[in-house]
């Protein structure tokens, strides 16, 4: 027997080819890194609206009379805070205070929650959750193969979807969720995204995914909608300061170290690894994820060393040229948790020390999201 190494395809594979997508292997999935070009697509999402195929992501139903208790035990965030039709970003902690995955949980009814997790971690997540579910009256169902997922992102995203699904645009703000009919099939829409822009994500039966893509393309044509690939998904999320699981956060790093302490609610009752989190909160962390911006030309990459006060303090876990800011940016763990925004550091790029500065993340936030937060 040989292990299967064939890359998997989403329901949009043929659609990507039709739109000129440049297909690459992305953690075992054949997905488009770009169509016209990363910079153009990045700009489209910042100024108009882009469509992303995120069908590779995992979906898990969590239902039953003890669904909430189960999610409280397995999450750092306080899942009791989300009422019907609300969604929340959270971390799944392990016993050592590390992170099994980051995810978005939607409350879609009494004892009925919908989890969207990362593609590369799906199987591990499901096994982990199933193990923790013993003793709880809860049913977990991995429905990832049943669903496709399309992210509609950009300042014109809600205007686009309101043309056919006014209920989505009428949702009361970010991190809301709704079950609704999409092209005659039962779907779910969340007002979420990974770009730093307003928008939503459609989760629909696999067979509906390609027709939905075409419908969104034609509805959005007057607004300048374009397909957007994984290349700009990464530059957009980095500018927005979002973590990439497996790169920026993992089993070895805690939410506090990742500068995402706001997803840890120590006052909600017991949860896996709580003692570790409580200790870290009390004692402080020894290393912390910082955003860093280059002060000179150069393109930083993951793995590049970051120096503070003449000493290597850590390395980038993610880094890129930031198209909106026209400058190199990165994030990485530095063993200098005392550093403040504005602190001068340097980044070693191919043996050259490039002056840089610690920056408060996000590096960029759209005016729509800024206003939504205010």
């Amino acid at each position, binding site marked *: 027997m040989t292990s299967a190494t064939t890359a998997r395809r989403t329901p949009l594979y043929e659609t990507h080819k039709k739109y000129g997508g440049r297909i690459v292997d992305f953690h075992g999935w054949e997905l488009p890194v*770009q169509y016209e*070009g*990363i910079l*153009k697509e990045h700009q489209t999402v910042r100024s108009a609206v882009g469509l992303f195929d995120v069908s590779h992501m995992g979906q898990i139903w969590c239902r039953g009379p003890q669904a909430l208790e189960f999610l409280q035990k397995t999450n750092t965030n306080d899942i009791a805070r989300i009422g019907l039709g609300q969604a929340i970003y959270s971390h799944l902690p392990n016993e050592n205070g590390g992170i099994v995955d980051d995810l978005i949980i939607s409350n879609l009814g009494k004892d009925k929650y919908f989890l969207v997790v990362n593609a590369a971690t799906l199987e591990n997540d499901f096994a982990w959750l199933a193990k923790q579910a013993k003793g709880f009256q809860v049913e977990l169902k991995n429905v990832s193969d049943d669903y496709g997922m399309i992210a509609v992102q950009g300042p014109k995203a809600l205007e686009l979807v309101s043309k056919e699904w006014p209920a989505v645009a009428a949702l009361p703000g970010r991190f809301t969720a709704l079950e609704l009919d999409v092209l005659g099939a039962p779907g779910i829409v969340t007002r979420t995204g990974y770009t730093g822009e307003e928008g939503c994500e459609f989760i629909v039966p696999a067979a509906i995914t390609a027709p939905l893509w075409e419908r969104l393309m034609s509805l959005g044509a007057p607004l300048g909608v374009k397909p957007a690939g994984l*290349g700009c998904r990464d*530059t957009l999320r980095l500018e927005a300061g979002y973590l990439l699981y497996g790169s920026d956060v993992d089993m070895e790093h805690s939410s506090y170290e990742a500068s995402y302490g706001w997803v840890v609610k120590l006052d909600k009752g017991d949860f896996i690894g709580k003692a570790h989190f409580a200790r870290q909160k009390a004692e402080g962390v020894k290393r912390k994820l910082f955003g860093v911006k280059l002060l000179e*030309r*150069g393109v930083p990459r993951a793995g590049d060393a970051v120096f503070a006060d003449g000493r290597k303090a850590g390395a980038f876990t993610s880094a890129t*040229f930031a198209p909106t800011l026209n400058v190199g940016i990165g994030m990485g763990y530095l063993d200098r948790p005392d550093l403040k925004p504005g602190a001068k550091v340097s980044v070693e790029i*191919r043996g050259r020390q490039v002056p840089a500065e610690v920056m408060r993340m996000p590096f960029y936030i759209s005016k729509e999201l800024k206003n939504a937060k205010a």
Partner: protein
Amino acid sequence: MPKPEDCRFTKTHEWACSEGGTVTVGVSDHAQHEITDIVFVEPPKAGRQVKAGDSCCVVESVKAAFDIYAPIAGEVTAANEAVTKDPAVVNRSPMEQGWLFKMKPANPGELNKLMDWNAYQAFLKTAEAHAGH
């Protein structure tokens, strides 16, 4: 500015064109297309001595960095400041405004060992041409 027909090409997709004893070097249209959106160019410093095949210039897209190799031996005499200021010029005009550096060849005859335009067109149809830069 050179016509492709007057240039020589490497298997690593650099072009080199001789004019009045100076050789201008850049990347082919095929290469700029494969590299995708170019956001950074680090050209060699004038005065640097290079051998054929030396990595002497870096061109970076959003996703990755690409080494550019000296097509022949010689001394780097100038770098194109226009592409360091606006790297996208290499995408827009790889064989004209987007040239990367100029060289004084150690042996002007060395250029003739490289592929001419027709040979390069044939090379692009082979698997080797797509094995990476």
